[in-house]
């Protein structure tokens, strides 16, 4: 329902800005143009989206996921103390992080949900535990090796080097994940209830 309200507000706001603008504006033409843009963009993106989804699957089965899980283990034990004693939780969590890393969002979510269920406190099943808060923050920070969708849009728009943003994307998501988890940690220390 939220999107329906956003949609209405956007329409009204456009009409009002159009009426009060000094230029004459043909919103009807804008509507026709915009909807066609959606299709052109989708067709232009199709090639890279397919390719990178294929590469993601390949990297997963090639054992990159396992390798990453091994590298991540020390960090995982620090952020989620529960993984030290619960091997199933450790497996689900590292699979979730690795799948996100390889851009396999659809594969990452079910494993993340399984991990989330194991992190709930049986005494207070409806309250988020500290570990669960950190898991969500880590998932919302999106650490990705290849931001395939964005690269697809860039190449569709005629970019010569669609991947030149990779280092910037990596640095940015590492910072936001790091600061997000640190913030969650600090707030968790003082948050009672």
């Amino acid at each position, binding site marked *: 329902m939220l999107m329906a309200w*956003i949609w209405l507000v956007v329409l009204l706001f456009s009409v009002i800005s159009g009426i009060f603008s000094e230029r004459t504006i043909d919103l009807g033409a804008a509507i026709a143009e915009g909807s066609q843009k*959606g299709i052109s963009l989708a067709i232009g993106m199709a090639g890279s989206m397919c390719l990178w989804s*294929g590469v993601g699957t390949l990297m997963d089965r090639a054992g990159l996921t396992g390798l990453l899980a091994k590298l991540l283990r020390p960090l995982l034990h620090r952020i989620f103390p529960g993984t030290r004693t619960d091997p199933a939780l450790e497996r689900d969590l590292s699979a979730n992080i690795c799948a996100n890393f390889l851009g396999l969002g659809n594969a990452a*979510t079910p494993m993340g949900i399984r991990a989330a269920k194991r992190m709930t406190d049986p005494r207070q099943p409806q309250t*988020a535990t500290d570990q669960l*808060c950190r898991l969500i923050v880590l998932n919302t920070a999106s650490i990705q090796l290849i*931001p395939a969708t964005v690269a697809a849009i860039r190449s569709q728009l005629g970019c010569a080097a669609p991947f030149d943003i990779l280092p*910037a*994307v990596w640095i*940015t998501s590492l910072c936001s994940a790091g600061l997000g988890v640190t913030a969650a940690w600090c707030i968790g220390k003082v948050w009672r209830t």
Partner: protein
Amino acid sequence: MTGYIVPAILILATALALHKKEDAYGLLVTGAADGLKLLLSIIPTLVILLTAVTMLRSSGGIEHLSRWLSPVFRLFSIPPETAMLVLIRPFSGSAALAVGAELMATYGVDSQIGRTAAVMLGSTETTFYTVSVYFGAAGIQRTRYTIPAALIADLTGFVMSSLTVRLLFP
């Protein structure tokens, strides 16, 4: 340099898969089919939202919005032109994609704003969607400090996107 990162990843993945006696080619094809399905699922939203964004752009609405919000954005040194993207990103992934694509097309893919929009899209997530999926599935009612902490991560992402683009593409 960045031109070689991608082929290097491709070669590494194929070699590793063959080493593990996996059918690398078959995996690529199956994965590509999944990619097509994913794309198909976002096309309808892309069409509807690009219609809205194009209206908003041609009516001058986006300029108004970024002008009003520019003091706040300047405070965090985020380009005010990306205001729409920053506002919609935590709520809807495909809407953010539509807004970001429109920004890149308007200002140019290799412009400062176009690149910042791309880095923002690549390094942040649909926070409220993620929160609702995970907490819904785990049956959590009291989210405690999750949302403020996740929004701190988002804000860091937006600020760092602007900063890294300015530093790496002067």
